[in-house]
Each structure stands twice: as structure tokens, then as C-alpha cells.
């Protein structure tokens, strides 16, 4: 048996490592390890509730919009208000644009280098000047610079990498995907222009507030937002989907690798102001069996996490007392459980639950894709299924943005108003690009008494629960074949398909109970 620690897992957000036990060329056990803690919980408590809106976005620089919206929604609950229509739609437009950015960055800039061969550029013989520039660069790096004293590494940041017979061989497919890498950088930047048109800036939008947003939907704002949709949409339809299919074609095994089948979604994009109707459905699925979601069944367990505080608590009562030296604990991530079970959240969960709920748009996309790759629905509960679900979702969202713009009341108020009450509590559920995100707040004396987030990455990258059962990523890694224990790229592929965001996961924002009496180890 070989115990391998892959540390750090790069090309994800934040500090994660994975320990795997490999026996006869297969993973037989796995631990997912969050390597960083910031302790936002005590920093939030005692502040003006409005500060949570800005501070909580700094939990994560990749999905700040979802944190901003989740905190706005939990503040609205505590203040006893609802957003107005403009506010809700403008938030959807911001979140939708941030999805385009996040999903493109995930596939092309984080995940694709596990499949695509950058050195294929050396074999390029075509006439595209941009690609020839890149070819010249790779040639110079590998033939001139490599081994030279002034180079720390040649070909950075694309080399070094895991070396072996791991990558796509077809030159044209590689070149096309590399071209996609470069183009996707521009597309995701344009998606951020759309976010900034409403939110003031990106990342970390400044204009998200309880009740809606601050930016009035003027004609100029709408023009700036609309300007970029078509181009991004074309890229998604013509290239992103094709590249995902190309990877699926070359790596068919991954329809069977990295499997997990418990899913949860809070519902993506509010279509009413009552948190009831969604663009992608809310629910729970165990395999192909659908169930109703009930927020009271959420708990967080910490037996294997580096916290000395109580375990199996509901988020409203959550505690976080760090203990870096806790015996038997191996991660800074807690283990969230729904009804006692580990759940996968994210694009795959959303797509599966929407499919089972009878969402026609999702169903037609999924069925068409399954027919094309000759697979059944359970095949999508896998590494490739996650990439495919992400791509399908991106396509559907990009197409929907126009409809939402048309529903805006031009130059109308972008938010409702509020007064901060002496006390109150609220819950804000939203789907971040990587999965279900919830914020819970208790307000006392117009200040934050307790604030807690349960974030997507703790759901899927969390450790064993109190019952000793593995978290989703740990479970999904089992049976992954590892061809070369010195270059365990297969395990990295499985982990990355979840799109982990460790900044979110370990900067869990949880409140202490009594301000002023809180003691930490």
C-alpha cells in the first residue's frame, strides 16, 4: 500500500491537499484536508449587520457575488423585508454573469490542464498568428530557456506538470483547447464587465445591499451589460461544449470514475420574491429518487475537524472554536450533513435535481448529450458528468439573461428600503457556482450576535462525519485507478471536477453565542 499526499492541490481556489491510499493501482482510502483557517466568525460578531454584506464577500474571491446575495437574503429575513422585482432581477443578472466567469475559468484554466497537452503547440503547422506566437513562446521556453541558470522553471505556469501518458494526443484537439484557454480568459473578463455594470466592480461587488442592489438599471447600464452576452454565448455554444465533449470522448473511463450519488440544491435564480420559484429546482436526490428539501435537517459535524466546539449543531446555533492540535482531526473543514448524510452540491446536483423535477430545458440538454456520448443517466454521477453539467448549465444561463433584462423596470428603484431592527434572525439560501451556500444570522441590539455560513466546498470536501463515514470527495476518490503513484493525476482530476473553493470552506463564518464572554483555547 502506498500512502500519497498530494499537497498542494493547485488550480483550485485555496489550500487543499488530498491523502490517498493506493493498493493494486487503485485508491482504497482518501482524506480531504483543508489547510487554512482565518476565523471570520469572531471578526463578524458585534459588528453592524450591514458590514456582513461586504465582509462575507471576502470569504471567497471567485464566488463573492453568491456570498453577497446570501448575506443580503439573510439580512432581509432578519429585517423582515423582501427585495423588489428590480432588485431580485438585477441580482440574478449579476449572479448569472458571475456563473459564466466561474464556469469558464473552472473548465479552461483550472481543470483542462489535466487533459490538454500544452506541448502540442510544438507540432502546430497552421497559419494562425496568435497560435504561432504561443508556439514560438513554448519553443523558446523548452529549447532555449530550459536548464538555463536564469530560469527557475521553463514554460511557467504551464510546466512543470505531472509527466506521463496522460494527455490528449490529437494535435488539433489540443490546439483548439489551448486556443479556448486563451479566448476563455477574455470571455470570463467580459462576464466580469457584466457583473461590474451592476455591482460597481468585480470581484467583490460593492453594490449588493439588503433589499436589492444600488445600481439603478439605466439604459446605459443595460447597454453595457447586454453588449457582451452574445459573444460569450457564441463561445459557450461553439467551443466550450465542444471541448467538454472532446475531453469526454478521449477519457470515457471518467464516466465511471469519481462517482457519488447524493445530491442537494437550494434552487438557482429566484423567479419570485418569496424564495419559492427557481430557474433550476430546489430539492434533494438520492440517485434518481427525488425528495423535498427541508433546511431544518442541516447539521455540521466536527469530530474529524480541528475544532473543540460542539458537534452536530444546526447553523443557527453553530460554534467554531479552533484547536490546531486536536487529536484525530485532519482538516479545517467541518462536515455538513443533511439528514445525517453527506451530500454533493454544485452543477451536477442542480442539473440532476432539475432533470428529475421535470425541468424541460435541462431534460432536453441532458438527453441530447447522453445520446451523443451513448451513456445513461447514472453515468453523469461522475467526474465527466460534473464537467458536462457545468457546461449545460452555462449554456442555459447565458440564453436566459436576455429574458431577465426585458423584465427590468428601466430607471426604476433597484431595491426596497429597511430599518435595522433591535433583534431578528434570517436565513439566506443561494446556489453559488460550485453549490449550495447558506448564510444564517441572529441580530441582537442592532448588531450581529451570530453569523454562520455553510458553504459548498465544506459540503463536498468536508471530512468524515461523526459516524466515521467519508465526505463526498473522499468517497468519490475510492476505486480511482492510479497508474503512477509519483504522478497521481487521476486523483487530481476527480477532485478538480468538484470545483473546490477552500477559501470558502475554511473561512467558515460562524458566530459565537455571547458577545464578550467568548473564550478561545
Amino acid at each position, binding site marked *: 500500500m502506498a500512502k500519497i499526499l498530494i499537497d498542494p492541490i493547485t488550480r483550485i481556489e485555496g489550500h487543499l491537499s488530498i491523502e490517498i491510499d493506493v493498493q493494486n493501482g487503485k485508491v482504497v482510502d482518501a482524506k480531504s484536508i483543508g489547510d*487554512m483557517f482565518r*476565523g471570520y466568525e469572531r471578526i463578524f460578531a458585534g459588528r453592524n449587520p450591514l458590514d456582513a454584506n*461586504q465582509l462575507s464577500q471576502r470569504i471567497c474571491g471567485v464566488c463573492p457575488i453568491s456570498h453577497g446575495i446570501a448575506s443580503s437574503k439573510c439580512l432581509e429575513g432578519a429585517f423582515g423585508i423582501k427585495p423588489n422585482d428590480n432588485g431580485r432581477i438585477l441580482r440574478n443578472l449579476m449572479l448569472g454573469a458571475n456563473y459564466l466567469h466561474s464556469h469558464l*475559468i473552472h473548465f479552461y484554466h483550472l481543470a483542462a490542464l489535466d487533459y490538454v497537452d500544452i506541448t502540442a503547440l510544438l507540432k502546430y503547422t497552421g497559419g494562425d498568428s496568435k497560435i504561432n506566437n504561443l508556439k514560438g513562446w513554448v519553443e523558446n521556453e523548452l529549447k532555449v530557456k530550459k536548464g538555463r541558470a536564469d530560469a527557475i522553471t521553463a514554460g511557467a505556469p504551464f510546466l512543470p506538470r*505531472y509527466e506521463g501518458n496522460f494527455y490528449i494526443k490529437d494535435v488539433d484537439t489540443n490546439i483548439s483547447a489551448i486556443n479556448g484557454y486563451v479566448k476563455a480568459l477574455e470571455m470570463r473578463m467580459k462576464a466580469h464587465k457584466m457583473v*461590474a*455594470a451592476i455591482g460597481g*466592480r468585480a470581484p467583490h461587488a460593492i453594490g449588493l445591499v439588503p433589499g436589492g442592489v444600488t445600481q439603478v438599471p439605466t439604459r446605459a447600464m443595460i447597454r453595457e451589460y447586454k453588449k457582451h452576452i452574445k459573444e460569450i454565448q457564441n463561445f459557450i455554444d461553439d467551443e466550450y461544449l465542444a471541448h467538454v465533449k472532446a475531453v469526454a470522448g478521449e477519457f470515457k473511463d471518467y464516466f465511471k470514475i469519481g462517482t457519488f450519488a447524493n445530491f442537494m440544491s437550494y434552487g438557482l435564480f429566484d423567479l419570485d420574491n418569496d424564495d419559492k420559484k427557481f430557474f433550476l429546482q430546489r430539492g434533494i436526490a438520492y440517485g434518481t429518487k427525488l425528495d423535498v428539501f427541508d433546511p431544518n435537517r442541516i447539521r455540521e459535524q466536527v469530530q474529524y475537524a480541528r475544532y473543540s466546539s460542539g458537534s452536530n449543531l444546526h447553523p443557527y446555533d453553530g460554534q467554531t472554536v*479552533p484547536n490546531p*492540535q486536536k487529536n484525530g482531526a485532519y482538516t479545517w473543514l467541518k462536515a455538513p450533513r443533511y439528514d445525517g448524510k453527506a451530500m454533493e452540491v454544485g452543477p451536477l446536483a442542480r442539473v440532476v435535481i432539475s432533470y428529475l423535477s421535470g425541468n424541460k430545458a435541462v431534460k432536453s440538454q441532458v438527453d441530447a448529450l447522453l445520446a451523443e456520448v451513448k451513456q445513461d443517466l447514472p453515468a453523469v454521477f461522475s467526474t465527466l458528468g460534473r464537467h458536462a453539467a457545468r457546461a449545460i448549465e452555462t449554456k442555459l444561463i447565458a440564453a436566459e439573461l436576455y429574458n431577465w433584462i426585458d423584465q427590468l423596470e428601466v430607471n426604476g428603484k433597484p431595491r426596497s428600503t429597511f430599518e435595522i431592527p433591535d433583534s431578528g434572525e434570517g436565513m439566506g439560501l443561494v446556489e453559488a457556482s460550485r453549490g449550495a451556500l447558506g448564510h444564517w444570522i441572529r441580530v441582537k441590539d442592532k448588531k450581529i450576535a451570530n453569523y454562520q455560513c455553510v458553504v459548498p466546498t465544506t459540503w463536498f470536501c468536508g471530512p468524515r462525519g461523526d459516524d466515521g463515514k467519508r465526505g463526498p470527495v473522499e468517497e468519490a476518490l475510492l476505486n480511482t485507478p492510479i497508474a503512477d503513484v509519483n504522478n497521481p493525476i487521476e486523483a487530481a482530476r476527480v477532485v478538480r471536477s468538484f470545483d473546490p473553493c477552500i477559501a470558502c470552506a475554511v473561512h467558515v463564518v460562524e458566530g459565537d453565542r455571547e458577545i464578550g464572554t467568548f473564550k478561545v483555547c
Partner: protein
Amino acid sequence: MSLNRRDFLKIMGGTAAAITFPSVMIQGCKRALEKASERTNVIWIQAQSCSGCSVSLLNQVDPSIVSVITEYISLNYHQTLMAGTGHAATRVLEEAVKKNRKDFVLIVEGSIPMKDDKYCTIGEVDGRLISAREWIEKLGANATHLVSIGTCAAYGGIPAAEPRDGSGNPTGAISLSRLMKGKTVLNIPGCPPHPNWMVGTLLHVLLKGMPELDEYGRPKMYYGKTVHEQCERLSDYKAGTFAKYWGDEGCLYQVGCLGMDSCCDIPVRKWLGGVNSCTQCGAGCIGCTEDVFPDFGRRGVFKHLNARNENLIKLEHRVAAFNLRNGGVING
């Protein structure tokens, strides 16, 4: 470094070349550009960060981020972007330390936890987990330049904020300059910083040497003026028109804007190539480029929206000057 003069001027000046980039430097840099021919090695360590600064860097428009990383710098280590993972990644840092390399710029994103090394570790060497603090100390001792990207690395930021119950910061998070005492650290604060500030400052250092810094270690060319004096809504302020609520017409002071006390050029440079700004969108400045963000003493970010009118400093008493740390104009 192969950077043409046009690109260089663009990034240095951005949309406000005339006010942010002294002409004497424009003449000087031509010679420097001719001399420069190699990409500069860059090691970028993320400690207690949210990666927001890195995401903001990707929003660099002109020259594009692809040009930046293939023509101007050699990004040898960057956890979010590099292909190598596990040992293939850690080896880059290990070799740089072992071989005692002195030919790289060290960029740090995120604050550094001091209470326990386990609060942030990056990779393993010979079976031992290495903390972010240890990497930064070892690499920082030899780096040609130390650069803090973002407010967390520059001043501590949110991870270093003080809990209101007086129990002290949970992880003992500190800034790069506090960790590397005695070394010159170039600060590019902001939560996140504008990509032009990052790339522009870096190029300035590589081509022209250190830019002129203010007392908080920030390049004056980007942080030399307050938000207020460059604000799109300055005329509202002068006319005495104040917004009662976010998004309304008028100066945003009464909804908690910290622009009078915070320094950066966002109202003129704007985000994402001119799309919008913090003040333009109706939210206001949250003072994210300042060393006292997000505490501002006991004030916090959104004091004024809660404050009673009689507690606000009388508007006619205020000056368009920067006096934040002395409890100055924001002391409402």
C-alpha cells in the same frame, strides 16, 4: 522582458495617463525597455487569501493577461494558475530555497497567521508540512523585491481584524511587512486591487526601479489622491446634494461612503476598463485600500447608515483631506 513602449504607457497611465504617470518617466523608460529582454521570475504565494486579488489580476485588459504571463513575467509559482500540482508544484519552491536563488520577485497575497503554523500550510517537504510563514520568510530573505498584493498582505485586512469582544485576532494574522521587518515591502492594497495597479507597479519596479511611495508603502501614482477629490459625485457634494439611501442621486457620505478618507483613483480609472466604479454605482467607498480596513477603529464599514444625525460630523466642517487614522472626518 519584452514590453513595447505603447503597452507600457497604456498600463501605467490606464485611462488617466496624464494625472498618474509623470512624463519624465515616460522618457526614461524607453531606454530601459530596449535593455530588457528576459521575463522576470515571479513567485506568488497565497497565504490567508480569498484569491480575489488573483481573480482581479485576470481582469487586466491591455496588455492582456496572456501577454503579461508569456512576455513580461515568468510566473513560476502561482497556486491557482500553475499546471503542476502536489510535489510537482512544491518542488519549485523547494529548489528556489535550496539553491539559494536570488533572482525572483516574491509576491504575497493574503495575510500570514502567526499563532499556529497549522492555520496555513502549503505542501510538504521530507514528510513535514511547511507553513506559509516559513516559505515566505525563506523566500523573502532572498527575493529581489517583496510585493504585497491586496490589503490582507499589505496591512492584514479582514483576517487581521479585531473581534469586537476584545478577545484578540483568532489566528494572529499579520501583514508581509510586519513579518519581514527591516525589508522594503511594496504595498498594492485594495480589496481587491485594480489589475492596473498590480501590473503597472510591477512593471515600474522591473523597468524603472521603485516608484515613489507614500507613508503606507503605496505607489503615489495610484494612491496619491483621495477618492472624494476625484469622485464622479463631487459636484453633488459641493452643491450640498446628499443621497439619503444607496443608489439615490447625490453625494453618498450619509450612507457611509469613506471616500473622503481613502486613497485610490477608482472614480477616474474605474473597474473593468471603464465599466463602473464603487461611487458611480451608488454604493460608495468602503475604504478597502487603507491600513485600518475593515475596523476603522470601532466604526466598522457602514456606520453612517445607522448613525443618528446629531452624531454625524457637520458637513461644512469637513475638508477634502485625508485624515482617517486620526479619527478624522469619518468619526461620525
